[in-house]
């Protein structure tokens, strides 16, 4: 393992995450897998790295008052339950020898979907800009089926009166993703909170980061105790490089045009997904493999 490659990886992903305001977990884990880190380790270490990259963002949102702790806590209840179930699935898949395959498949689906949606969206935005059309904002005020569910709760900071069922459910789903894929899940949680739950945009990012910190921290501890798969040295190198890279990413991101950048990120996401897909299809060097019970010891 070359420390400079890991540093470069962390810095590059940190730079991108700062530039686009994404967590970066969904890029770190596949990159580690490409670098022949066992997927078990890549996922657990990725979750640990996300803790660090989410903290500074959450702190600044908290200072600015754009973090709804009550809403975040309800999300977290679902998140912790989801992560618990996720780790159980993770260990089961591992004992069946299907873990690496499932991680790769999930990433192919996830990166393919997110990349395609982002690419389409940025192409539309570029066309609009070229035609000089004003951006048409969808009204997020309208109610949908989600708002007819029972068990409603008032979230003062978000100025919203909402059933806890979809909030816990969303947290649960994200918790499963966190534990199986080593991602924070912000790239799914943020749009779902805005478009599905109609939560005001200004509190969405801070609140999702709040949930991410605790769920990734919990996942790290549970992975460490059940699968012994957290590599603290690897995680630390990634964290340090990542938080520094993110600072520069933020600065560059403020100067460049958003649509083109988003199109570039979309292409990168699609490329990573395509590489994982190719690895699933290409005939492996050896179709046999050995695993000992005290693996990676």
């Amino acid at each position, binding site marked *: 393992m070359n420390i400079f490659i890991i540093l470069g990886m962390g810095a590059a992903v940190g730079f991108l995450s700062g530039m686009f305001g994404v967590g970066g977990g969904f890029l770190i884990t596949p990159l580690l897998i490409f670098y022949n880190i066992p997927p078990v380790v890549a996922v657990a270490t990725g979750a640990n790295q996300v803790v660090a990259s989410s903290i500074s963002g959450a702190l600044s949102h908290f200072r600015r008052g754009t973090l709804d702790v009550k809403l975040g806590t309800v999300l977290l209840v679902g998140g912790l339950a989801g992560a618990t179930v996720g780790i159980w699935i993770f260990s089961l898949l591992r004992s069946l020898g299907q873990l690496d395959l499932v991680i790769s498949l999930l990433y192919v689906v996830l990166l393919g979907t997110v990349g395609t949606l982002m690419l389409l969206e940025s192409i539309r935005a570029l066309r609009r800009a070229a035609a000089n059309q004003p951006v048409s904002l969808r009204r997020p005020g309208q109610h949908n089926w989600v708002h007819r569910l029972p068990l409603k709760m008032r979230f003062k900071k978000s100025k919203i009166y909402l059933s806890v069922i979809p909030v816990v459910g969303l947290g649960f789903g994200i918790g499963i993703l966190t534990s199986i894929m080593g991602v924070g899940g912000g790239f799914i949680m943020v749009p779902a909170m805005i478009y599905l739950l109609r939560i005001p945009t200004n509190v969405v990012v801070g609140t999702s980061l709040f949930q991410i910190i605790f769920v990734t921290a919990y996942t790290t501890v549970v992975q460490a105790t059940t699968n012994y798969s957290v590599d603290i040295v690897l995680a630390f190198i990634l964290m340090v490089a990542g938080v520094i890279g993110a600072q520069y990413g933020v600065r560059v991101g403020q100067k460049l045009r958003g649509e083109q950048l988003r199109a570039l990120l979309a292409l990168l996401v699609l490329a990573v997904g395509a590489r994982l897909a190719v690895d699933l299809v290409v005939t492996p060097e050896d179709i046999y493999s*050995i695993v000992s019970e005290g693996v990676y010891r």
Partner: protein
Amino acid sequence: MRAVAALCLVIGLAVPALGWAQEDKPAEFPEKLEIGISTDEIAISSDFRGADLTIFGAIEGYDPSLLAQSKYDIVVALEGPKDNNTVRVKERIFGIWVNRRSMTFELVPESYSLSSTRDVETIAAPPVLNGVGVGIQHIRLSPVGYLGDGSNLTEFRDAFRRLKESGGFYQRDPGGVQFISASLFKATVKLPANVPNGTHVVRAHLFRDGVFIAEKALPLRVMKTGIEQMISNAAYNQSFAYGAFSVMLAVLTGWLASVVFRKD
């Protein structure tokens, strides 16, 4: 660092051989095997690139005429710590390579380094070697909870041996055992660079004209040292504290970054 290895002793002392070393030997053979290594513990640092371990030994109560005809053969094996190992085979399903069939072998050594007076296959007949369980081709590979018809047992055993050999965990050196006097011999076994941590066993076997007649075993602890091993030990033995510390380190890194790069 170089693994210290050497040995000593042995000959002539009328020390009664330890019972456990010979209990499963038929009593009618007068020959006994003695081996010795200078240490029962080897410390290995993180820059270890592999080393040779030398084991000295002697045949006692030998028949001089048989010795003169080179009828005695010695096989020395360094067996690593044992663990259950699962071999899996991938098959293509809808274009994707998926692990399908598998077989778990019960308590097989993680590493196995063999040294002998000549190629093990020529020392004794396969059934004899299988019975003793000596030689990469004859090591005991018994499947756990296996209920099949045995038709693919060979396939998985062969794959296991091949992968272990290509990974450098299983090695053999025909000619690694040399007689340095009439009955005193020296065996060189290799410790691979990725030698597993734990208790290994040096096991010496004596064959006379293709017949297995004596065995002697000595434990050898391999202890990895250095910061990497300390971290690895913590991850396994204090896994909760290790996980909690990983999280704390992340919180600290994230918080420090927000302080250092704070703009407002």
